[in-house]
């Protein structure tokens, strides 16, 4: 799929959920997303289940002009460096981390890409807070100048989590299309509903 002019155009403040089947399809979304970002001067940070930077850079090189500066603006981290620092997830600490990491000193846009399978590591405390985190992130002011892409492999998640992902992302990428997602609920409404359901 294609990002940028002629393809999918994302804007600062976008919080996007990508739905796909399997890691090959993940790369068909993730690689062009990063290549587009690096190409226009954005900083790109990814949190991936397998943080193999050189493999990622190699895949990126097929899409980017050889003289494009950018690889130095790409950061590839694993879950223990991001969502699951200290072996647990805490939304508050996470927002602080994300704000620091993405805001930085530069004025450029930062693109985040996170593979959400960290939340399947049920031995880590706090991972069941995934959905309320996804709702609240829509209200975090420093992140409104960034682009967040959350990667959901539908082969790995339950139907329950998939629908919660649709409830918490204003935009969704599915089948190579960017969709204004009608199932999105404002965080207050989503969180009130999850309390009622208990």
């Amino acid at each position: 799929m294609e990002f940028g002019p002629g393809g999918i155009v994302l804007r600062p403040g976008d919080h996007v959920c990508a739905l796909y089947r399997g890691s090959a399809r993940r790369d068909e979304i993730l690689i062009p997303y990063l290549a587009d970002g690096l190409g226009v001067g954005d900083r790109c940070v990814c949190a991936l289940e397998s943080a193999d930077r050189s493999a990622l850079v190699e895949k990126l090189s097929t899409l980017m002009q050889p003289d494009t500066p950018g690889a130095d603006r790409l950061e590839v981290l694993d879950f223990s460096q991001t969502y699951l620092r200290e072996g647990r997830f805490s939304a508050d600490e996470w927002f602080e981390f994300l704000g620091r990491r993405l805001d930085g000193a530069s004025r450029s846009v930062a693109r985040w890409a996170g593979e959400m399978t960290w939340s399947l590591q049920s031995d880590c405390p706090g991972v069941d807070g995934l959905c309320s985190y996804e709702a609240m992130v829509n209200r975090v002011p420093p992140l409104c100048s960034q682009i967040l892409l959350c990667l959901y492999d539908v082969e790995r998640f339950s139907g329950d989590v998939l629908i919660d992902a649709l409830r918490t992302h204003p935009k969704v990428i599915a089948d190579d299309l960017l969709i204004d997602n009608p199932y999105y609920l404002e965080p207050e409404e989503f969180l009130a509903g999850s309390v009622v359901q208990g």
Partner: protein
Amino acid sequence: MDVGPGDHVCAFYRGLPERDRVLLPYLRAGLMAGNKCICVVDATAPDTVLADLTSGVDSHALRAQGQLNLMASQDAYFPGGGFSADAMLDFWEQNVRKALHDEGFEFVRAVGEMTWSLRSIPGVDELVRYEAALNKFSRRYPQVILCLYDLERFSGEIIMDMLKTHSKVLLGGTIYENPYYIRPEEFLAVLGS
């Protein structure tokens, strides 16, 4: 519930109490409007639905008169122990034609609870093709078809397929035009390739 002729709607809910908050008003409204109602349930016995339906309608009498057809999943989706998409499409064809042409009803409300497909039944791998093909069937008659998917039971993969094969979705009490829907001609072509 804002549904119209030809609609093939997927209802997503969590657990049995929420199923009943979708299923019972759907049937009750259909019965009060004089629609033929064909209901196939899996998580509870048909008689439980019958008992829960009594407020506002005389469900026992309507069943006896043939307006309400309540069935268990094994008698509809996998009679003889196996599921076949073609056989199931034929089941709906026969039943809907009978209601409209022989019994004189003007509109049919069908509903199927899909948890039966979580069992290892021969042919259950035809489920997605069946759901896609149902879109061609639903628009041929004055009817609504409602499919019930319990989010606590199904995988993300199946729920994604259901988003692609239902033109409307019922979620949290709201009916949505579903933008993830793919027309059956296109969906089946991809599935076949």
